[in-house]
């Protein structure tokens, strides 16, 4: 397969996943802010959202102060911001368009349709209670794209590179969401174990569709340690880091070429650390340090994959 074709497929999937994760992240930010209305935690939640989503300087240049309305408009519908939801969906569509002949017509139509709807959508609806609905819609369209991808595409390189994009993006995003929010929650709250704390952590769980999952797996009260374990180490949790690395290592095996041995080795080491890791050890070494290191390694893998198979990004 042409490197460029693989590159477009990979980024099509990454941007689709990124839009979904942005919606999830903003959704949890909004839920958390409702719990804290008027207090300090409110602003810091929105600032965290900005940190997760990309560089902060362009936001500051346009909006100045971090305000809920400013962050929402910047990260949802601002076409000038390539890291906004609309920016990601546009990039997903552009990448799909460039390799339209490689996609099934169902997949192309799904991605194109998503883009047309969001492009023609009304940002004003977003204000207030409309936001939750919008986030649900973005998640739903992402589910649809993924389902159509798996349900219609030939099981060959085209699919593998798309999946590789999905799982690398998801690993990166899950790690960032957990890192930024856990840091804030573990540092800033006065009533650890109290009611507010409970709602904050459960909102975080909901951001990765894991609230019910947590209940089923642990049948216990919500603790930071367990939440982190679920996010990082549980291989049966579809958005966990471990699950993502299961997929990444397997996919790298399938697409491997003469140059990609080192990339596979590094992915394998990262995978092993999750496979055999213990959450107590991770906490002992510092959760933030661990996640920071993890995000760095995902960045390294992405870079190496671009060099081995795709179009290198300089």
């Amino acid at each position: 397969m042409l490197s460029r074709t693989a590159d477009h497929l990979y980024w099509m999937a990454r941007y689709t996943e990124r839009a979904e994760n942005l919606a999830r992240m903003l959704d949890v930010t909004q839920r958390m802010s409702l719990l804290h209305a008027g207090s300090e935690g409110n602003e810091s939640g929105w600032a965290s959202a900005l940190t997760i989503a990309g560089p902060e300087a362009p936001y500051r240049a346009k909006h100045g102060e971090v305000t809920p309305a400013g962050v929402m408009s910047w990260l949802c519908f601002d076409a000038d911001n390539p890291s906004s939801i609309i920016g990601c969906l546009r990039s997903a569509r552009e990448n799909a368009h460039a390799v339209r002949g490689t996609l099934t017509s169902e997949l192309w139509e799904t991605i194109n349709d998503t883009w047309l709807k969001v492009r023609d959508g009304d940002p004003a609806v977003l204000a207030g209670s409309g936001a939750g609905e919008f986030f649900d819609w973005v998640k739903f369209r992402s589910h649809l794209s993924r389902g159509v991808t798996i349900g219609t595409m030939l099981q060959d390189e085209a699919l593998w590179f798309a999946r590789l994009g999905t799982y690398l993006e998801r690993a990166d995003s899950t790690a960032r969401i957990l890192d930024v929010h856990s840091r804030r929650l573990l540092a800033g709250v006065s009533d650890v174990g109290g009611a507010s704390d409970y709602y904050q952590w459960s909102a975080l769980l909901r951001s990765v569709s894991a609230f019910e999952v947590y209940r089923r797996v642990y049948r216990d009260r919500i603790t930071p340690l367990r939440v982190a374990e679920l996010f990082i180490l549980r291989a049966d949790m579809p958005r966990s880091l471990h699950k993502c690395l299961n997929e990444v290592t397997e996919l790298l095996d399938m697409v491997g070429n003469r140059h990609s041995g080192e990339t596979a080795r590094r992915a394998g080491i990262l995978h092993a650390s999750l496979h055999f890791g213990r959450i107590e050890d991770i906490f002992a070494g510092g959760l933030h340090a661990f996640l920071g290191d993890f995000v760095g390694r995902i960045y390294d893998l992405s870079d190496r994959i671009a060099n081995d198979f795709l179009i290198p990004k300089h």
Partner: protein
Amino acid sequence: MKATAYDEMTTADGAVRPHYAAFAAWLASQPAETLARKREEADLVFHRLGITFAVYGEAEGTERLIPFDMIPRILPAAEWSQLAAGLRQRVRALNAFLGDIYHDQEILKAGHIPAMQVLQNVQYRPEMQGLDVPGGIYAHIAGVDLVRAGAGEFYVLEDNLRVPSGVSYMLEDRRMMMRLFPDLFARCRVAPVEHYPDTLQEVLRTVAPIGVSNPTVALLTPGHFNSAYFEHAFLAQQMGIELVEGQDLFVADEQVFMRTTQGPRQVDVIYRRLDDDFLDPLAFRQDSMLGVPGLLSVYRAGRVTLANAIGTGVADDKSIYPYVPEMVRFYLGEEPLLNNVPTYMLRKPDDLAYVLDHLPELVVKEVHGSGGYGMLVGPAATKQEIEDFRARVVAAPEKYIAQPTLSLSTCPIFVEQGIAPRHIDLRPFVLSGREIRIVPGGLTRVALREGSLVVNSSQGGGTKDTWVLED
């Protein structure tokens, strides 16, 4: 003018021509609602498949469907075999001409064509001088535009030897007709065209560089903003070859490679749908982002085949067109089987004077124009348009040729109110490899506006399925 047009389906006194008899009987038996439903179905399917072309000059990314008409253009077997013989002859002569002007230039020495006309032509590529190409073939794919005039005789309007397009519509139109009216194909013996991609691939493989037994063929496209991108993707997919852009290819060790997920892979034959100017920024336009740096040097070393070859544009240039019958006589020692349209060359003072006196009757074309841009159709133009064009011609007469307005033949199409005749042309695709192959028929383009003679898709033309009946 309308009164003199030749109709493909009916004679002047309204009788159905024999080769249309079976179709006409079938058409008469179809209820209007059925036909209306089929029309909607056709629109829907074309939309869903995304068979579109981009339109230059409109908002970026504007894509339109090419209108498709359900009444086929039918040619009887005997007529087609004459046309095919004429096309073979003409393309053989054109390839011989290209080989000659890039080598010994016999035809110029013999004085049949003014040397300046060829050697000073912007489409003449000095880089090609003395270069031998596999099989001596330059124009592997030619799209020769034919029209039928008042008395029923055919004329060649132009020889498209650079990157002719439209063959995907020929194939899709047939697929659509067979889908809509399978029973019709049971009644009429229509020569198949579906093997075109196979034939093209075979031709491309036979012109691989010497010594390459199992060549890798790729289709080079300018990218998805090009108006014919759909066709590029379609043909690559049908032939099972890679659709590459310039950035996918690179030159190393006197070879062309494409970047794949499994590492570099050598490419032997490039079916390029990119103009000469953009092929290699080191050799031609330096600002080209679409080409492959170093491609020309590999080509000149004979390590890659380009189809079509570089520099074919000099042979389909409108200023060279009047000499094609002469080429047939000179290279083949035969009389031309196909007619040329009488052509005035405005660089000649006598021709210029005549044309300026007769603008309202003539068609005036830019020598280097294509796609129906930059032309004047005298009989259809307003006084103001004619005067504007006169000024342009006077300013630079050498840039123009003129021809009498041919009353292009008509064929019925479906319109809002029933069925009405519209002007059509025909573009058969002539493939030259070890031998010349032509898929029966070609693409019939139709001017959808009543009375219009412009069939180009960029100017509101549509297409029809083209049938060659088998005996």
